[in-house]
């Protein structure tokens, strides 16, 4: 498998996720510490073996970009490689890329990537208006849902995508969450339930939108060689890439998030495999339309065909391509894509019980964040 350009011999060796949902009294820092402890135990590592620390500050993290410092202190670490980064839902995978590069370059041997947030109980920030300088709120343009609603409307106009097709995504995530004891939303959902949910920002309804959650997540990256000596079954990072469109409405294609395709293609190239090799995919689902667009960008279907692709349960377990097998941001918990990494790893370890994709060898994980600006993708494989 190895030897491809851009694919360092690096593996994810430990994952940790705290309880998710509504956690009164929890703090972002405390959740990060808990997640780190869980990931260490999963890997069978001692904390003094971790010499790299990468973090994403939560939306409620008071210290913001200095989170690496606060968490490093709380964990009693002395890293020789550390940083905090805020790219929303692309961050986990961008940090994975930084970790693989640091390990390949000898800047660190074992890097922990950690996130914690109390967006559910600590005050959600997702309703704010975007725009530098003049706020888009002047015209009433608020919240993350509106950006994806713009994408959905144009996608519907150009390709005939329907709200019932969006519902297929929500229903698939919910069915998978029902098989995941750690998921927040486990009640079964039908397409009709989705259609009956209240409009939030048309064409998006309530069940097109992700949850808002408290929780912490961590994963640990090290060399494949070191990983093989540890407790957990290593999952190799075959390829990981990022791409961005910092321009928003200044870019005529902004609505379609074209950098997602750039990131996915670069990850495949580094991995030396294409979409046909992918057994299971964790596709970033801040809103249902995002999954449809990711299916197109990651090469599972052509542009405009994502709506048809998801019909008839094809992204459910047992379908053509099982997607978001733990329930995703829509039904497991909104950890901004960090749990997508955890599930990506667990599927390839074969640990997923009733939601396990049989003989899963290669998995794709994607992330996207900010005002449709940032994207990243990773191809993972069983060692």
């Amino acid at each position: 498998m190895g030897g491809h350009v851009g694919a360092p011999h690096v593996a994810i060796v430990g994952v940790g996720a705290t309880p998710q949902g509504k956690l009164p009294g929890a703090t972002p820092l405390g959740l990060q510490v808990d997640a780190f402890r869980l990931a260490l135990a999963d890997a069978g590592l001692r904390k003094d073996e971790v010499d790299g620390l990468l973090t994403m500050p939560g939306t409620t993290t008071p210290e913001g970009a200095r989170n690496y410092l606060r968490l490093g202190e709380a964990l009693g670490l002395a890293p020789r490689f550390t940083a905090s980064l805020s790219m929303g839902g692309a961050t986990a995978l961008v940090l994975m890329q930084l970790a693989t590069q640091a390990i390949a370059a000898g800047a660190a041997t074992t890097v922990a990537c950690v996130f914690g947030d109390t967006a559910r109980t600590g005050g959600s920030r997702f309703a704010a208006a975007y725009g530098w300088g003049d706020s888009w709120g002047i015209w009433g343009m608020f919240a993350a849902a509106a950006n994806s609603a713009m994408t959905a409307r144009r996608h519907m106009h150009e390709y005939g995508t329907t709200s019932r097709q969006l519902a297929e995504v929500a229903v698939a995530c919910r069915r998978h969450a029902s098989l995941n004891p750690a998921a927040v939303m486990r009640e079964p959902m039908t397409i009709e339930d989705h259609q009956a949910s209240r409009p939030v920002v048309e064409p998006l309804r309530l069940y097109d939108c992700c949850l808002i959650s408290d929780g912490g997540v961590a994963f640990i990256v090290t060399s494949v060689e070191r990983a093989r000596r540890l407790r957990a079954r290593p999952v190799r990072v075959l390829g990981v890439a990022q791409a961005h469109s910092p321009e928003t409405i200044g870019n005529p294609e902004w609505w379609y998030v074209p950098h997602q395709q750039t990131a996915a293609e670069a990850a495949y190239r580094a991995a030396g495999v294409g979409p046909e090799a992918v057994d299971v995919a964790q596709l970033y689902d801040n809103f249902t339309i995002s999954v449809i667009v990711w299916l197109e960008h990651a090469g599972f279907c052509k542009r405009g065909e994502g709506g048809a692709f998801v019909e008839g349960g094809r992204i459910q377990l047992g379908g053509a391509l099982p997607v978001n097998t733990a329930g995703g941001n829509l039904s497991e918990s909104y950890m901004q894509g960090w749990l997508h990494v955890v599930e990506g790893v667990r599927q390839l370890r074969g640990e997923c019980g009733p939601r396990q994709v049989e003989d899963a060898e290669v998995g794709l994980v994607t992330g996207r964040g900010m005002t449709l600006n940032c994207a990243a993708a990773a191809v993972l494989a069983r060692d």
Partner: protein
Amino acid sequence: MTYAKPLPTIDDDNRPFWEALTHGELRLQRCLACGHHRYPIAPACPRCLAAEHEWTRLSGRGRVFSYVVFHHVYHEAFRPDVPYNVALVQLDEGPFMFSNVVGVPNEALRCDLPVTVVFDRVTEAVTLPRFRPLEDP
């Protein structure tokens, strides 16, 4: 009655845009080096990086590239307005801007609907560019 919705922060960089609107003109920056019309307002051309520009008057015509209808109230001042639309309008000269389409029920909106600018004076200092259908939809 005070206007409770968000207002622009007028500064040296965007004053020509907001002043022109109070005179019933839609003006945006046009790069003097490459001719690119840019929006959002920026210190240099994002295509060629030249700073030299003029505030050129636009036709005010464009089309609804995409639009959404807000039902959820994210800001109290918009509560009386729901359901209200926000459109991503592509101007004939190229740039995209967010705005609202007036003079048409939300149900009659559609992508690619031709629109033209109207000037909505909301305070003494601020006139917002909104759009109305060019013809009866």
